[in-house]
């Protein structure tokens, strides 16, 4: 007779199930599966697999025209690398170029036009439609007849630059502005030493013996990547290239140079003239030749270059600059020395003087260039060599290129910032003082809300890197002319606006018609390439084969266009580098009478010893991509824009703490910084990089120290009196 089911029975049932469970796959399988599940969180991305293929393009994040090979998976770029054997880049790509494929997804990237609202010191961007943005710009232009319409072109001499100039020429009050950043040797200086307008100057650094650099980042990225690589590699082995870095800043180049000459801020030109003084007095230059090849080297007027150099003896400059007289004389002698006492003329390599264009005034630059003339570096192998200019792709009437310093104050009413990616290395103040007092309007065409775009009123973004067409004309400092183009690799979103569409719209609204005649960019490239093809000179590099051939072997300009559209490049042969018997009339002081006084004043500029000096310096330029955290925060290899480097001696006197917060105060404002002790910094100097603050996943912060720098009368901003307090 069965009993009822008791609790004990139930427990036995459960017990049996438990034992049975152990003998089934259930617990083991569930454990296994759960372990796998816990390692595959949905938010850890899984890279998409697929067909791999390679495309080529030319990087245009800066003007140096490096070739880039794009590795794509299912047509999505996943990495960039240099193109081996590329004649301009030498096969490399810089830290910014290597992460360029991330830029279309950068948090600061704009996908449609915006209006910028500023309230209570906060910036807010409000999305608006394409139509709204274009109407707003045309309205601003038509609203008043006062003031000019200006375009600031970040990378002049591109095809689109010519388009801008043509458009502006059709307006009654158009101005085309080129920024005061290092774009190689300015045209005016070129005219002085080469005497011709259609040439520009390149640096034949491969064959140089010693580079005397005034602030130029020779070992940190100067000239093309190929040139930079050669400079670095030529510093080892026999007959090595020497770098003498003259600057107050403990820059990367100063850290690596063979000799760092930390002159007191402002005394660079005086130092250069002291060198000139030694060269002249110790007969280390060919004074006779210089007399016959110029009207103002030594003309007995008491106001010639010779007289200028006399005023800057090494002894007097030693005190001003903080560099001993012996050192100055030693450097001058070094510049003309050759390996081996009787080196044959063929083995002789000249020295040359390089200078970082952005931070020096025009007059100081004249002095540096004059030193080059003295060294016989003009038109010689290993020195400054002439290059042809690229053909004009558009023809017709074009507005002149106006350097920013020449634009009259309070004259610009509407400023269009072209979206060139080369970054902002000059203070916004310099632009601000050019605006008319009542309601100027600033429009940014940049695809990113960064750099000077932060000051804009309207943002009309162009397609981002890898999504647009662009051309790369001859880079500053390259030894020959060159040309390459880039075509889109990714499709651009439909909501962004081509810059030429903005131009055409303004043109239509102002009834100027100059914009309507502008062809699409690709056509402009085609025109330029046709003209280059017709010249039948130079060489062509084909990225897909890695080979360089003579242009004469290319059978049509269509074929040339095809090669250049796929990451190739054209470069000129060297433009008849003549011997030092360069038949030109050098101009040392300028044809106007003020040359002498101006240069005297420029060279005499130096700061007294009182107080601290804020020295801004440029770190990496360009729109920084997210992976720059590796270089800025995760390894502090580079100083970010909110870090102030100070000599420990100076810092201790001011009671600053290494790694602590501080406030830098100048006559122009204050800036919050983090303090970093660095034994290499000149005592009394506060060094702050003009660089990004790469904060994290979501932002690349911008804190631009240039905002608090003082712009001096000669339009430079490299020296600002400052104070620093612990925060």
């Amino acid at each position, binding site marked *: 007779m069965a*009993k009822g089911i008791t609790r004990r029975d139930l427990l*036995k049932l459960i017990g049996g199930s438990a034992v*049975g469970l152990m003998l089934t*796959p259930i617990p083991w399988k569930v454990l296994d599966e759960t372990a796998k599940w816990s390692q595959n969180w949905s938010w850890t991305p899984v890279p998409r697999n697929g067909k791999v293929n390679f495309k080529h393009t030319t990087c245009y994040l800066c003007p140096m025209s490096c070739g880039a090979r794009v590795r794509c998976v299912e047509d999505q770029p996943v990495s960039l690398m240099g193109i081996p054997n590329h004649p301009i880049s030498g096969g490399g790509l810089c830290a910014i170029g290597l992460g360029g494929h991330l830029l279309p997804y950068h948090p600061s990237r704009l996908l449609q036009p915006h209006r910028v609202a500023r309230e209570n010191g906060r910036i807010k961007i409000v999305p608006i439609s394409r139509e709204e943005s274009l109407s707003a710009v045309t309205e601003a232009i038509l609203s008043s007849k006062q003031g000019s319409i200006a375009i600031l072109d970040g990378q002049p001499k591109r095809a689109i630059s010519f388009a801008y100039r043509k458009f502006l020429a059709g307006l009654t009050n158009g101005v085309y502005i080129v920024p005061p950043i290092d774009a190689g040797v300015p045209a005016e200086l070129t005219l002085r030493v080469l005497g011709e307008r259609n040439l520009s100057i390149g640096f034949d650094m491969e064959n140089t013996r010693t580079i005397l650099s005034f602030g130029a980042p020779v070992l940190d990225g100067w000239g093309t990547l190929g040139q930079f690589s050669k400079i670095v590699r030529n510093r080892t082995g026999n007959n090595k290239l020497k770098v003498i870095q003259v600057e107050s800043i403990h820059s990367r180049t100063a850290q690596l140079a063979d000799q760092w000459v930390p002159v007191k801020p402002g005394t660079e030109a005086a130092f250069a003239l002291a060198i000139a003084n030694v060269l002249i007095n110790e007969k280390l230059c060919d004074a006779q030749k210089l007399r016959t090849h110029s009207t103002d080297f030594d003309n007995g007027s008491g106001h010639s270059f010779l007289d200028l150099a006399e005023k800057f003896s090494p002894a007097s400059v030693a005190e001003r600059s903080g560099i001993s007289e012996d050192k100055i004389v030693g450097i001058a002698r070094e510049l003309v020395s050759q390996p081996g006492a009787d080196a044959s003329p063929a083995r002789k390599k000249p020295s040359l003087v390089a200078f970082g264009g952005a931070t020096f005034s025009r007059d100081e630059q004249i002095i540096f260039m004059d030193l080059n003339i003295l060294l016989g570096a003009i038109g010689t192998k290993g020195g400054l060599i002439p290059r042809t200019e690229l053909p004009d792709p558009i023809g017709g009437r074009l507005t002149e290129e106006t350097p920013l310093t020449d634009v009259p104050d309070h004259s610009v009413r509407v400023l269009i910032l072209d979206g060139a990616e080369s970054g902002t290395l000059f203070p916004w103040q310099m632009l601000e003082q050019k605006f008319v007092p009542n309601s100027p309007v600033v429009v940014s065409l940049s695809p990113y809300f960064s750099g000077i775009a932060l000051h804009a009123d309207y943002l009309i973004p162009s397609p981002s890197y890898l999504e647009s067409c662009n051309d790369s004309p001859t880079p500053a400092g390259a030894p020959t002319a060159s040309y390459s183009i880039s075509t889109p690799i990714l499709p651009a979103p439909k909501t962004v606006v081509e810059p030429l569409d903005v131009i055409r719209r303004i043109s239509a609204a102002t009834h100027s018609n100059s914009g309507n005649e502008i062809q699409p960019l690709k056509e402009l490239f085609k025109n330029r390439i046709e003209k280059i093809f017709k010249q039948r000179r130079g060489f062509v590099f084909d990225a897909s084969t890695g080979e360089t051939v003579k242009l004469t072997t290319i059978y049509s300009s269509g074929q040339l266009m095809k090669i250049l559209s796929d990451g190739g490049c054209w470069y000129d042969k060297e433009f008849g580098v003549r011997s030092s018997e360069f038949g030109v009339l050098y101009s040392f002081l300028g044809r106007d009478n003020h040359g002498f006084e101006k240069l005297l004043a420029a060279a005499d500029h130096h700061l007294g010893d009182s107080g601290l000096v804020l020295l801004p310096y440029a770190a990496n330029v360009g729109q920084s991509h997210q992976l720059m955290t590796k270089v800025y925060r995760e390894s502090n290899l580079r100083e970010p824009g909110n870090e102030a480097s100070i000599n420990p001696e100076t810092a201790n006197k001011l009671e600053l703490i290494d790694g602590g917060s501080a406030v830098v105060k100048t006559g122009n404002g204050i800036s919050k910084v983090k303090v970093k002790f660095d034994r290499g910094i000149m005592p009394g100097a506060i060094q702050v990089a003009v660089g990004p603050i790469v904060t994290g996943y979501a932002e690349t912060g911008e804190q631009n120290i240039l905002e608090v720098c003082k712009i001096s009368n000669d339009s430079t901003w490299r020296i600002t009196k400052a104070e620093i307090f612990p925060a």
Partner: protein
Amino acid sequence: MADHGKVMFFLGAAVILAFGWVVFPYVIYKPVNQPIQFSHFTHTSDNVGLKCENCHTFDKDGRFDGIPKIEKCRSCHLKPLGISGDEEKLERNYINPGLEIPWVIYSKQPQNVFFSHATHVKLAGIDCQTCHFGQAYTRSLRPAYFSRISGYSIDIFGKDLLDFPSTPSSGMRMADCSSCHHRQGVKESCIDCHK
């Protein structure tokens, strides 16, 4: 007097065992059907005579292309070649609009595994059927089964719930690959198969 305790015990065990061995294997895996019932047999039989490598190609760098793209199908099926409803579906939904067929992949290894078809097929000379047994002669595509918990395919983690290492044709776990490597005398190292 019946001992209810023992009965209950064995009843419990029996129920769980039955559940664990019979029901559980079906419950834990979720079937997913292929978008088109493709018949390998039609394509590989003597009429058409295609070989594996005609559609499942390698590129010049040795990467295995895997399941062919729609271009491959289009190269023959631009116009219907037969009368099946599936071919009609192929034309209508994929070839004409130019869309890729969303095939469900049976043997996709997890992210951390690197498998080189080139090494096994070209260098070791292993026949496709050794690991993809019978696939070439199927007349329809079986549904793919994915674990409801981890999402892994049953082809990878083994149809054999006992987890004993078996041949690659019934599972492609590390132990399965290793067992074949041991038989062939292939030395192993982490970096050869992981990424």
